């Protein structure tokens, strides 16, 4: 067990406190920066897609994991971001301006949705966001003059400050830059009064209100921040896919985002990243399983959704804190080596939380 001595002010405000954390994060960063040197193009583009999904996951995590507002409609912001950016740059707007404009647009749409959602709660919100998603998908499909409808929209290549960045490794570094920015930004957000208010609203709206938190405004803010980050992920996704069509941003995509943060671990930024890793690795595992299993089972078209469903159910029943929770337990085991007990993480007895009284 490491005992911390804080001797300087920087120790108190640093993100990474323990030596082990610093070493681990350093190793991951070194791997990420060096990845283009030894990874093949295919794996590199998979890795950069993973980074994009991690950004989207952090966006949803801020709303669902930290503010407690369930949204089944976040693929809509992914779609709005991707289309808005693609349309802007195809009209000759520079990348940097377009990214900022897209994020602002997504943020504003998110705040508008949050404004109407601030009175709803629980599953009313979940269904309302689901309906919002379906409407956005229909709009993207029907507004042919702008989005080219279901025929699809080709995204122009990425150009930043005049330099063309079309190659896989160049896009990868752009994604890496943005995800580091988002992670640092999100981590900082939750050390500020605004972020603390998000947490207060998640844990109890009533006590947050009693402490002088403006609950409605916090929800609007949270929706705005979350939508802007998801919009940014949409921008990067547009370049990653290089061809957009409305079906990509459907209900399934939203569920994928939701699955990411629930299985990754609600209420931690790391959880969103773990979730992104999981959904990137899962298709590879499933295609591997298809070869291993007998053809009568392995070649069934429904195998993939079935495995997705089973994995979610197993995670929620057996490890409610998600991959992040499991990681925390393993870390705790090693950090406090002989003292770890089975009951160290036993949850309290839980009862039905009613939403009818709130």
């Amino acid at each position, binding site marked *: 067990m490491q005992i911390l001595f804080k001797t300087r002010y920087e120790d108190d405000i640093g993100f990474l406190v323990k030596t082990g954390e610093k070493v681990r994060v350093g190793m991951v960063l070194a791997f990420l920066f060096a990845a283009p040197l030894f990874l093949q193009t295919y794996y590199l583009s998979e890795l950069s897609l993973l980074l994009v999904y991690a950004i989207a996951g952090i966006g949803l995590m801020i709303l*669902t994991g930290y503010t*407690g507002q*369930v949204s*089944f409609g976040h693929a809509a912001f992914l779609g709005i971001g991707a289309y808005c950016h693609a349309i802007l740059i195809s009209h000759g707007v520079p990348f940097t301006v377009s990214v900022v404009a897209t994020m602002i647009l997504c943020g504003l749409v998110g705040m508008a949705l949050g404004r*109407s959602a601030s*009175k*709803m709660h*629980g*599953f*009313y919100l*979940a*269904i*309302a966001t*689901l*309906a*919002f998603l*379906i*409407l956005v998908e*229909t709009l993207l499909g*029907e507004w042919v003059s702008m989005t080219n409808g279901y025929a699809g929209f080709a995204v122009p290549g990425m150009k930043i400050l005049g330099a063309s960045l079309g190659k896989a490794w160049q896009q990868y570094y752009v994604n890496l830059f943005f995800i580091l920015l988002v992670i640092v930004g999100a981590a900082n957000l939750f050390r500020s009064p605004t972020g603390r208010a998000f947490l207060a609203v998640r844990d109890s709206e*009533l006590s947050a209100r*009693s402490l002088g938190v403006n609950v409605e405004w916090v929800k609007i803010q949270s929706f705005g921040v979350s939508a802007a980050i998801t919009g940014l992920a949409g921008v990067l996704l547009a370049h990653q896919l290089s061809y957009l069509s409305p079906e990509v941003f459907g209900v399934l995509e939203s*569920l994928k985002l*939701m*699955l990411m*943060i*629930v299985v990754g671990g*609600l209420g931690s930024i790391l959880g969103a990243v773990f979730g992104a890793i999981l959904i990137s690795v899962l298709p590879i595992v499933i295609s591997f399983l298809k070869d291993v299993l007998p053809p009568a089972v392995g070649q*069934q*078209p*429904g*195998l993939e*959704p*079935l495995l*997705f*469903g*089973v994995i*979610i*159910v197993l995670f*929620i*029943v057996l490890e*409610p804190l998600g991959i992040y929770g499991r990681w925390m337990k393993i870390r705790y085991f090693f950090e406090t080596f002989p003292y770890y007990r089975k009951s160290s993480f036993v949850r309290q007895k*839980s*009862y*039905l*939380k*009613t*939403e*009818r*009284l*709130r």
Partner: protein
Amino acid sequence: MLQVNDIIHLAVTGLAQGCAYGLIALGFVLIYKATEVVNFAHGEFMMLGAFAVLAWSEFLGGSFWPAFVLGCLSIGVVGYLIDAQIMRRIIGQSSASIFIMTVAFGFIFRSLAGMIWGWKTLFLSTPFGGKIEIADGLSIGVDRVAIIVATVLLCGVLYLFFSRTRYGIAMQAASQNQLAAYYMGIPVKRLVSITWAIGAMIAAAAGALLAPITMVDTTIGFLGIKALAGAIVGGFGSIPGALLGCLLIGIVEPFADYFVPEIKGVSAYIVMLVVLFIRPQGLISQTFEKKV
């Protein structure tokens, strides 16, 4: 221009469709009232029900009613087991996890149904063929009348069950306050599982009755989302509210499709968003601000 006859025709179609949504929504609302879990897999219960009735009628050699009863009962058992084995373990977790859980059940059911019965559209033969002439040039299919009758009948039976029988009253108590119901010696766990079974059976019945209209395949579960929208318009906590909302959605839909064909299929969601914007708790509210 619309003739009066056309308007009546659209309205009758809408009413029948609304009743179909209402029939599905009944099960949603029951489960929600008892456990506060919104069962996103309810449409899939319906789909499984249709398949189960089909399988039983093939097994029994084509007779509909015994197959109907057996099919509903088997889906009831599935519903009971889902609650007793899985949902009971995750009481008290965050609502996001519980939503995702039921959505995952939907995925599992759909894949399993596809694996067992294939992905093709099947046909279930029911005794509800033909049409009834109401006025000249205006007729309505017997299958739609059957749905309306079944909805009314089920509402009546459920009303009597909840207001007259010992089990029904115990369920009401458990849904109002689980902990207090425990203290009164009510077997809450078993009651909740039975509620799931009843909800699943209603869904299965709806699936079998809707089969002549929707046919039987793995995608009919998506009708459940529209029923959910209808139930939300009315206010999820009460059965009359949910039925009202479903009827409203059902009647609006054919007219919206007629006048604004661009939004075919999504008008239900527009209605829902508008209603939620004005009245966040639905038309008949069931939530109350906590007094401190």
